């Protein structure tokens, strides 16, 4: 029964029945079929169709939905908004997480208490984080908005697009720093002590060692975190946008995933929404491929 030739990902000792594995796979594949494959294929089909608002007639329109998208001012605006939003969020998250991880690596006392508190936002739903930040920066009642105004700076995220963008970037980063932080702490812990000691003997101080030894070794982790931050910024910040700005004012925070929702469920433009979904899917797949490249790299460079 034990076979000697090995397929990839198959245990050396394995069973050779046919019916049982099919039964075991059935629930997973059935759910994937209903809620993953069919919806994805539907999105692909709809992206090439044009239906009138009542769904009475449907035409095949080739790439019209896509050309209409790229011609539309609001979609191009949404692309730029998404780029700015994800980049800013990425930079803020990684820099703060790196500083905190470096500090955590150096301290001995209270280390686990610090970690425990810094990890807390992971448990908080994005929409709740959004509600709290919307309150803090609310121009009428928010305590932080009050502080900003007391410096004589005008502040109103309901009217000023840049204020709104700053607010969603802060809220999104606040919620996500903990994620990058925990991976960087784990990464720093894996840096070989011998390397650090050798560098210290050569006279490199702690900060220099961090930049010249730890940071390059953290390269793969940073790469992984950057892709994960993009995934987060692109897809999971929907709730923050919906709670804080609803894409406004005047589309200043209308990121792509929020626009899919708006066009699909509020404006009921299914063809356009599906075309946007397809573009987002393509982008998600690109990120996935990048991810796998990273996994490969991690294996090669593992210490």
């Amino acid at each position, binding site marked *: *029964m034990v076979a000697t030739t090995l397929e990839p990902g*198959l245990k050396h000792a394995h069973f050779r029945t046919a019916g049982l594995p099919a039964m075991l796979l059935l629930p997973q594949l059935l759910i*994937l079929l*209903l*809620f993953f494959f069919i919806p994805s294929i539907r999105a692909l089909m709809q992206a090439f169709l044009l239906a009138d608002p009542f769904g009475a007639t449907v035409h095949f329109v080739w790439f019209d939905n896509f050309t209409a998208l790229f011609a539309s001012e609001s979609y191009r605006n949404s692309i730029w908004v998404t780029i700015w939003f994800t980049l800013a969020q990425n930079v803020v998250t990684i820099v703060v997480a790196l500083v905190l991880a470096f500090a955590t690596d150096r301290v001995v006392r209270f280390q686990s208490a610090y970690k425990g508190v810094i990890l807390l936002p992971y*448990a*908080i739903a994005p929409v709740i984080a959004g509600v709290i930040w919307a309150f803090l920066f609310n121009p009428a009642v928010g305590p*932080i908005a009050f502080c900003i105004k007391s410096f004589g700076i005008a502040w109103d995220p309901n009217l000023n697009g840049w204020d709104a963008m700053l607010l969603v970037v802060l809220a999104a980063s606040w919620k996500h720093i903990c994620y990058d932080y925990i991976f960087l702490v784990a990464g720093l812990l894996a840096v070989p002590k011998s390397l650090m000691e050798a560098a210290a003997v050569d006279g490199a101080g702690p900060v220099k060692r961090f930049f010249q030894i730890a940071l390059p070794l953290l390269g793969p982790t940073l790469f992984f975190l950057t892709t994960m931050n993009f995934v987060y910024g692109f897809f999971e910040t929907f709730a923050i946008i919906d709670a804080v700005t609803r894409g406004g004012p005047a589309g200043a925070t209308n990121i792509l995933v929020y626009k899919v929702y708006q066009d699909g469920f509020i404006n009921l433009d299914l063809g356009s929404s599906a075309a946007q979904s397809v573009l987002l899917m393509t982008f998600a797949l690109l990120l996935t491929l990048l991810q796998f490249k990273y996994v490969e790299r991690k294996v090669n460079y593992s210490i």
Partner: protein
Amino acid sequence: MVERSPILTTICHLLLIGGIVLVCMPLYFAFIAGSLTMEQVQQVPMPWLPGGHFIENLATAWSKVDFGQLLVNSFIVAIGITVGKVAISLLSAFAITYFRFRFRILAFWLIFMSLMLPVEVRIVPTYEAVANAALPIQWLIDLLNLQGLWEWISGDRIEISLEWNMLNTYQGLILPLIASASATFLFRQFFLTVPDELLEAARLDGASAMRFFWTILLPLSRSNIIALSIILFLYGWNQYLWPLLFTTDKDMATAVIGVKHLIPRSDTEPAWNVAMSGALLAMLPPVVVVLVMQRWFVRGLVDSSK
């Protein structure tokens, strides 16, 4: 630590305290706002110390959006997602690592493809799938023209229209969120590290495949299951987009959606105190889980992104 450097250590402590302030400050203000009356919360500047109306505001929030029911819904959905995903993932990971059958590689790739294509990008079509899960069967009927076939055979004309509406149901909230393979891969990776000798020994003792799964593989996976369950519980509890779309019936919404309904808009009274107390209530269960099971949580987080 390589060398002692008291100044740097002090700076590090200060940085970490800064980080803690950054995390806690919004929560602290939320708590203060949640403990004030509506008049107090609108004072400029807002008081910096908590008032005594927290329970009162909580009661208002509770009755305003029926939090009792919403919390129950959140628990059912979060636990449903956790148990469902762990169960189907364990079974399918077992199938693709421990069995050799003809379509093994195909099954592997089908599951693999669903990895990392987030639910958010196929919002509209998934909504359709949930609004009528029988739709694929309907297409099949239309495609094969079964109606015409029946008419041709029997001479009767029938109209087949199937409907299986899952809006406002627990399965509608749970099933689409189980449809991803991340957990399957976690278990697959783990099963590949289990020593082959275990199966060989079990086989010598005459154990069947399922018996090996139940008595050996499952107990070995215990710590992986716990770590992953925490992550999935948080994921399920904090879902927003799906419950928002799938639940038109207010009694079927989740606690997180309840908080959204409490946010004051420009045309409503600015009851931020009630909104903040509700927000703190809805975040309590996942926060407790993370605090109590921190070690497992960190492990689950790192494992599930491998």
